[in-house]
């Protein structure tokens, strides 16, 4: 059995070194081609007409004027009259025209009538008892039930038992009948008992999850020496990918589709397009060279992508581009769910955590959303958690780097930090005191906390809450720890060695800016003893073997494993062909520095090119796979630990927070490229500063629309917001032998919590929710002033 294991530290020539990203030259020169840059032959420009209302029924759509406009090549109705739009910006009609200006005119000429319905965009704390009982049906509920063809029996039963919160109007009843409601249902609506809930939010907006209890939280809380109570949370934020979501699709003949799409999931898109387009997935080719950011929001063939394909078909197969405008990108193409909680946490005088109680809520759009994993990391022995999801018309949530973890970290680490302040302990001491309940990574956390404290100068800088203010500037420290899984996704890798010595790799993966290309070529070059430039890498196409979507930090594990197995097998197949020429057994050979030689005997060697000439006329092709139980060991792993520390300054007069220094210490198993690994941490801290201080999707309760769907008021962190950033990657014994683990999620989890804790340490009071904008800082400070007065 060949040995697929990662090479030992002393044998590594490339793995773990600081190697420049291989696609950097293409990116810095403007030569890298993104989906947005693709300009197909005779390409048409698609535009989508979107709902201006957060919830409304489409009454009528008139496209007559549009269809007559010169240059308009296709019109497609996405949602027919009678459909209900559930968020502002929802797609209703699309057009394709010869240029963008014409497409804009065409979109503007479409007349759509809506009937506005009551919407809900607030994720404020649910009223007491909300969601515990379903409450009476609202007009919207009945509308949804009829629209979704709820069985008569079920709907009639609900009407009889729950009653209604509205007095049915004859017009509504007539419309419901037109929509297919039976006479029995109409009668049941007429007869349903009326419950007046005016002024209350309809109960159906709130979904309460089952209360989870462990141990005896009430007793433990009563017996705790110290109990700290507080409010914590993180708002809904956007992905705001620099390259908007979108695609260009063309029908290359009546049965075949070619789609250029900005995606994290090259190998998974065809399968999603096949059903709506009614052609086999095998007839759909997906292509993407470079990709301008996804962060978890680009796994799907979205409705606008399917729409581009439909417009193309109507236009005789001409390529149709739909790339979202910036407002749509921010309104509909991604939201990280919010999570807020009232937390009570109890501990012994020495800091030992004993009890946790939380009532949390949040929204992930129309689906509601789930509870973040709280208490996070610390398995507090006695706990009770309750969560209420709020269904809102803010557009659907999408995975955002480390789904649910940044929110869980904010809520948990914030609560523990407040507890530490109440105990007059440094949070560093409280964390260290409780490492025993952090699970399998506790020694990692211990080591990392020590390193981070040194890099931050924690011990020298630490002062108790609110004790470090001079000339109106308060300074503070905060910390947080985090974990993530990882493992490697499914990946197939074809590695081809040509008789002239050239090497190519084909894999249907994608590089979303994380350095996937670099990872693959380093592993192949290391295994074959070649420089990385010798590996010709082809990714981003369904013509190549499938590889998983880039999500959950599973890509490095997946692609490095399949590449390693392919390269080891290819190397051994080459050894078998070359051995006779070197008068040796295949097992005696090694490839190193561009040669194939007898181990330890440089005199019996062939250059790589000479060695490959022994392959004969046909190139050698090998398929490597992950996972592959027949080719052990498992080259990946799961479960990492990381620490973040933040040092901030707060201007007590203006409420402006500036981060002065941040430290990230991170474990991710065996690192393939130290340079891009560190970049992941620098980038994550930067994004963290953004969501900690600036980012929030703001919704107008009156119109139900996002107020800041642009890059001026949806503010990302800028160059001047970035302080000294220090990254320390855990490597060497105890880490390397774990195998390769991805790094996209973990380092982005803690920055928000660490910054929030640092602000609390600086100003002496908690600013409950992220982002910590100046108004919230001033509001928190005025609470202290009131309490003192």
């Amino acid at each position, binding site marked *: 059995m060949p040995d697929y294991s990662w090479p030992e530290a002393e044998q590594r020539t490339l793995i773990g070194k600081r190697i*420049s*990203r291989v*696609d*950097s*030259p*293409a*990116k*810095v*020169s*403007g*030569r*890298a*081609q*993104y989906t*947005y*840059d693709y*300009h197909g032959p005779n390409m048409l420009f698609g535009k989508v007409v979107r709902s201006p209302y957060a919830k409304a029924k489409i009454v009528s759509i008139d496209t007559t004027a549009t269809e007559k406009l010169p240059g308009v090549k296709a019109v497609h109705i996405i949602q027919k009259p009678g459909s209900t739009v559930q968020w502002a910006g929802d797609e209703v009609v699309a057009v394709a025209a010869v*240029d*963008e*200006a014409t497409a804009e005119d065409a979109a503007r000429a479409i007349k759509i009538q809506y009937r506005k319905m009551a919407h809900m965009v607030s994720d404020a704390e649910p009223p007491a008892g909300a969601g515990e009982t379903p409450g009476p049906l609202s007009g919207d509920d009945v509308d949804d039930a009829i629209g979704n063809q709820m069985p008569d029996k079920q709907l009639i039963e609900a009407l009889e038992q729950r009653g209604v919160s509205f007095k049915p109007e004859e017009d509504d009843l007539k419309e419901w009948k037109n929509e297919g409601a039976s006479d029995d249902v109409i009668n049941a609506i007429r007869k349903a008992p009326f419950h007046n809930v005016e002024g209350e939010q309809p109960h159906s907006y709130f979904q309460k999850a089952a209360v989870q209890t462990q141990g005896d939280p009430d007793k433990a809380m009563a017996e705790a020496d110290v109990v700290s109570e507080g409010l914590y949370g993180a708002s809904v934020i956007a992905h*705001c*990918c*620099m*390259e*908007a979501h979108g695609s260009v699709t063309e029908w290359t003949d009546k049965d075949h589709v070619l789609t250029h799409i900005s995606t994290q999931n090259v190998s998974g898109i065809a399968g999603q397009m096949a059903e709506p387009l009614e052609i086999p997935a095998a007839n759909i080719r997906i292509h993407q060279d*470079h*990709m*301008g*950011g996804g*962060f978890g929001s680009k796994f799907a063939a979205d409705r606008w992508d399917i729409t581009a394909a439909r417009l193309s078909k109507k236009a005789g197969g001409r390529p149709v581009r739909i*790339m979202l*405008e*910036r407002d749509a990108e921010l309104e509909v193409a991604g939201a990280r769910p919010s999570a807020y909680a009232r937390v009570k946490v109890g501990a012994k005088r020495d800091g030992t955590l004993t009890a946790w109680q939380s009532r949390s809520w949040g929204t992930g759009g129309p689906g509601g959303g789930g509870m973040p994993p709280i208490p996070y990391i610390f398995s507090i022995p006695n706990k009770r958690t309750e969560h209420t999801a709020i269904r809102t018309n803010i557009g659907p949530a999408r995975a955002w780097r480390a789904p649910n973890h940044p929110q869980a970290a904010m809520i948990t680490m914030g609560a523990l930090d407040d507890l530490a302040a109440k105990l007059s302990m440094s949070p560093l001491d409280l964390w260290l005191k409780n490492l025993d309940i952090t699970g399998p990574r506790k020694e990692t956390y211990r080591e990392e906390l020590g390193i981070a404290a040194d890099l931050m100068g924690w011990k020298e800088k630490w002062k108790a809450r609110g004790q470090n203010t001079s000339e109106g500037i308060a300074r503070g420290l905060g910390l947080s720890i985090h974990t993530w899984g990882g493992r490697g996704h499914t990946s197939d890798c074809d590695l081809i060695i040509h008789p002239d010595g050239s090497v190519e790799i084909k894999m249907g993966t994608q590089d*979303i*800016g*994380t*350095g996937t290309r670099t990872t693959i070529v380093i592993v192949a070059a290391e295994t074959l003893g070649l420089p990385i430039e010798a590996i010709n890498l082809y990714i981003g196409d369904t013509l190549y073997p499938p590889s998983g979507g880039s999500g959950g930090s599973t890509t490095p594990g997946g692609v490095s494993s399949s590449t390693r197995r392919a390269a080891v097998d290819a190397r051994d197949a080459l050894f078998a062909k070359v051995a006779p020429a070197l008068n040796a057994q295949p097992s005696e050979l090694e490839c190193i520095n561009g040669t194939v030689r007898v181990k330890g005997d440089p005199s019996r060697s062939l250059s790589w090119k000479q060695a490959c000439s022994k392959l004969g006329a046909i190139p050698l092709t090998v398929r490597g796979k992950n996972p592959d139980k027949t080719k052990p060991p498992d080259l990946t792993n799961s479960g990492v630990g990381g620490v973040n520390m933040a040092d901030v300054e707060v201007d007590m007069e203006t409420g402006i927070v500036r981060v002065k220094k941040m430290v990230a210490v991170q474990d991710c198993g065996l690192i393939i490229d130290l*340079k*891009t690994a*560190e*970049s992941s941490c*620098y*980038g*994550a*801290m*930067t*994004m963290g500063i*953004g969501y900690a201080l600036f980012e929030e999707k703001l919704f107008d309760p009156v119109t139900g629309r996002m107020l800041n769907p*642009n*890059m*001026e008021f949806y503010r*990302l*962190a*800028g*160059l*001047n917001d*970035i302080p000294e*950033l220090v990254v320390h990657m855990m490597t060497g014994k105890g880490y390397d032998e774990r195998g390769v683990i991805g790094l996209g999620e973990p380092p982005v989890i803690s920055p928000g919590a660490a910054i929030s804790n640092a602000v609390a340490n600086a100003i002496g009071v908690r600013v409950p929710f992220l982002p910590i904008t100046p108004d919230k800082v001033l509001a928190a400070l005025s609470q202290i002033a009131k309490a003192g007065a």
Partner: protein
Amino acid sequence: MLGTKVVKAAGASVKIYGPGKVPVELIVDGQKHKLEIEPRVTLLDALRDELQITGAKRVCDRAECGACTVIIDGKAVYACAVLAIAVQGKQIATVESLMQGDKLHPIQQAFVENDASQCGFCTPGFVIALKAFLDKHPNASPEEVRRGLSGNVCRCGTYHGIQQAIAQLAQRGA
């Protein structure tokens, strides 16, 4: 900016361009291009969709992010915020003009060495904005350069690498 067609507006005769396509001539990276476009087409869209010069990226399309930066007569300009018809006869330099054959410009080289790009979509804008700034202020301090680049935004968070690149360029006196 007066056109050739005369229309009545508010009781006066006004010369206008369009509606409809009009001839526009652009000088991009030293080359003349003749286009037929509507007067409302931005320089960015003209570059990308008409000339297929795509280094300048379309992100915010509202002069908020800097991804579309080009240099016009020596000045960094958001190509999404000027009309193509308004910059006829001016020297327009895109990021594509920086490489000499296969050789990267020192700014580009510094970006590569310091890993100042991740997804890379904002990168050409940063590179060309830095070029424009350093051409004007060759002895700027890193702090001044940071301020000079504050009109560009990155989502992946490559600012650390960009700062390292700036520091390296300052050291090498580029």
